[in-house]
């Protein structure tokens, strides 16, 4: 069991009070909540809640057991709003009901999925008829009711799930008064792939390839967090060299994402030149990724126990490319900041207050732009981040402009981290050979993706195969915040606000 994870077993009725006490002390961030089916070994379900301490590198993980014949527990949502989606997800996946939850509609599954079917239970099966009907989506088995806003002049605009551009599916229902957005309800999970269930059907070693396909633009962060979780569980120490390679590639991933995202915001304001300029720099970086690792999205590098290729052999290429990108990037930012009409659109648009961001457990760029100084690289140092000198960038402005500027500052921070990494040399083998995974063990893995923190929690069964893999992507945390950011904005500004968060549908529809 890793040193910084403190598991605390509690009685079902004490769990809620304990969590609320931790939350109210203000010294902890609620990170994720999940369940595991332990009916074979312990004859119960187990629900975990992960808090991370703000000042120290410690995770507090209270958990409690729940019997199958009484699958009801007191909801935490009224006191800790950040867990509202987690509790609904656990309801959909395990059939454990949070009593007192203000919104018990289904979250993950859509209308044609059978009502009493809980896929993450170990004994889950689905009949051929149910499967076909689910695939066709014609028969509504449990109708989803959208929230309704009533009153004079309220107009409802349904958008999606099929959009005019080539993007992933998501449905947005706006209730507007004139052009002003009064209420927005997103309906996601159209591309739910059952990834957590998939993990259970393959070995921990094969799981790496699945992890890096959860969300295309965060492939490396996901596989790094997954490998880290398995390595911590199996007590494997990766070499300094492997840690350096992972740190380097995490920053390269951040670099191409942030520059691409800044460019993408220009599409929201119609600045086509900024949009293409950002896309060109991003493409340069992706081609560089391909030169460096053989994969544009840095896939196939992480394995359990280390990495497969030593990018430091191409240190000169890295140095030259990063220098060239830095020059281009500075020109790009100068152009953007000089386009007053663009900046004017960003300022005071899509404000997400610090209070709401904290309560919803927002992570990553969106949190830092709302003044929350939270970065997993700093809060829970891993790989080589402890030795590196950097500070998370925050902004108190809370608007789209702040989200752009936080990204811009992080680009510079990533460039300096990459340059600092290149100054030293690192020892050790690329990977240590790992044959077996200990049975009945569990651990957390985490890292900071370009969008925010990603967590993997893995648990092995009695044979050393995956019993439960919980994955929490940053998009899952941040989607509920988007409606708050666009409240009171006008409808044509929604795409801009949405792009400033740049959340992944695929990453949320796990």
């Amino acid at each position, binding site marked *: 069991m890793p040193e910084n994870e403190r598991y605390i077993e509690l009685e079902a009725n004490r769990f809620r009070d304990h969590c609320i006490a931790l939350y109210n002390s203000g010294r902890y961030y609620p990170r994720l909540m999940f369940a595991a089916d332990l009916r074979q070994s312990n004859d119960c379900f187990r629900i975990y809640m992960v808090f991370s301490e703000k000042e120290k590198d410690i995770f507090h993980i209270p958990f409690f057991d729940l019997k199958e014949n009484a699958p009801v527990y007191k909801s935490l949502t009224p006191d800790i709003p950040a867990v509202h989606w987690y509790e609904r997800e656990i309801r959909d996946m395990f059939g454990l009901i949070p009593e007192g939850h203000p919104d018990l509609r289904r979250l993950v599954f859509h209308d044609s999925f059978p009502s009493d079917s809980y896929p993450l239970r170990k004994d889950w099966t689905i009949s051929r008829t149910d499967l076909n009907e689910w695939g066709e989506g014609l028969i509504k088995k449990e109708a989803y009711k959208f929230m309704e806003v009533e009153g004079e002049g309220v*107009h*409802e*605009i*349904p*958008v999606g799930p099929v*959009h*005019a*551009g080539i993007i992933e599916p998501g449905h947005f229902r706006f209730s507007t008064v004139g*052009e002003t957005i009064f209420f927005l309800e997103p309906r996601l999970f159209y591309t739910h792939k059952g990834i957590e269930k998939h993990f259970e059907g393959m070995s921990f070693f094969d799981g790496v390839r699945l992890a890096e396909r959860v969300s295309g633009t965060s492939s490396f962060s996901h596989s790094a967090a997954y490998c880290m979780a398995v390595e911590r569980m199996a007590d494997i120490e990766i070499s300094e060299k492997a840690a350096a390679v992972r740190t380097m590639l995490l920053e390269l991933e951040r670099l191409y994402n942030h520059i691409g995202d800044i460019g993408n915001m*220009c*599409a*929201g*304001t*119609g*600045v*086509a*030149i900024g*949009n*293409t*300029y950002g896309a*060109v720099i991003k493409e340069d970086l992706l081609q560089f990724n391909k030169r460096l690792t053989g994969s544009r999205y840095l896939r196939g590098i992480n394995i359990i126990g280390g990495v497969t290729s030593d990018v430091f052999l191409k240190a000169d290429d890295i140095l030259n490319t990063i220098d060239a990108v830095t020059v281009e990037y500075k020109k790009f930012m100068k152009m953007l900041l000089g*386009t007053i*009409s*663009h900046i*004017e*659109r960003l300022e005071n*648009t899509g404000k997400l207050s610090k209070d709401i961001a904290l309560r919803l457990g927002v992570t990553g760029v969106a949190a830092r732009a709302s003044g929350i100084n939270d970065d997993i690289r700093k809060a829970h140092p891993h790989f080589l981040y402890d030795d590196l000198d950097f500070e998370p960038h925050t902004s108190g402005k809370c608007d789209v402009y702040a989200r752009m500027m936080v990204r811009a500052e992080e680009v510079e921070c990533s460039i300096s981290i990459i340059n600092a990494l290149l100054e030293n040399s690192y020892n050790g083998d690329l990977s240590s050979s790992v044959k077996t995974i200990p049975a009945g063990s569990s651990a957390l893995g985490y890292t900071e993706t370009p969008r925010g923190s990603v967590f993997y929690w893995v648990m092995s069964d009695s044979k050393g195969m995956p019993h439960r893999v919980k994955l929490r992507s940053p998009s899952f945390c941040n989607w509920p915040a988007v409606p708050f950011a666009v409240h009171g904005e*006008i*409808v*044509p*500004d*929604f*795409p801009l606000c949405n792009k400033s968060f740049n959340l992944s549908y695929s990453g949320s529809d796990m």
Partner: protein
Amino acid sequence: MEYLQFILIIILSPLINGVIRKLKAQMQGRPGPGLFQSYFDLIRLFKKDMRISNTTSWIFGAAPYILFTSTIVAAMIVPVITTVSPFSVMGDIIAIIYIFALGRFFMALAGLDAGTAFGGEGSSREMTVAILVEPMLMLSIFTAAISAGSTNIAMLASISGPIYTPSHILALSAFIIAIIAETGRIPVDNPDTHLELTMIHEGMVLEYSGKYLALMEWAHYMKQMLLFTLAVDIFFPAGIINNTEPAALAMSFGIYLLKMFSIAFFMAIIESSRAKMRFFQLPSLLEGGFVLAFLSLLTYIMTGR
């Protein structure tokens, strides 16, 4: 020949749109589609089948024809390469503005007709913009009309030589803002966007497909070229001839094309250098245009030039 000059507008309008698209792509560092891409788009659309929502009424089917024919009627009144315009007895500049309004009215109705959210949004936004643009367009033209003593466009265009008085320059600025708004270009609308929620013109035609869409798009290209033509007729008439000799016509046609390409270049620069405005800030731009037009009229009345 003078009877047929409106055909130039029908035939060349997709080319002008292609030129703007090409120039914009070049400014973004992309090769962009060929100059004739707009023709290919229209041909492709004409060959396609149509999908028509069964919630629509006759308006949906009638709007493309009304829009297309009304734009052609407007094109007949406008002198393109010669001011000898036999159709000009049919109407003057005020008639043109209201012929445009007729097309716009039916397009907005058609946007509402299918009952979709985006069509309604587009129509509501289009009418908001139209209310602000029309007075500006009128006032800026009145300045030129008063100095020419007529609202007949052939008369306006016959005034030979440049007329760069302060009142005309003010009127021209207002007219340019009106053209940008009328043709749905940045900073008012974004013709290239795929973001349904931000659309104005595209929102209204979102339900259209196949031949109807082709007619709508073609009418939009023609309207754009007509507005450009009006701008050169009123503010840069130099080069337009008042007879129908073939050699002179050819010369005038060359000059006309040159003027069109210059305006296309100018539009491409504006579109590439600015962000789209926030929708609720549009009134300040359009009211600014109105003030310019009003000032131009005032200047003319007070200074007499």
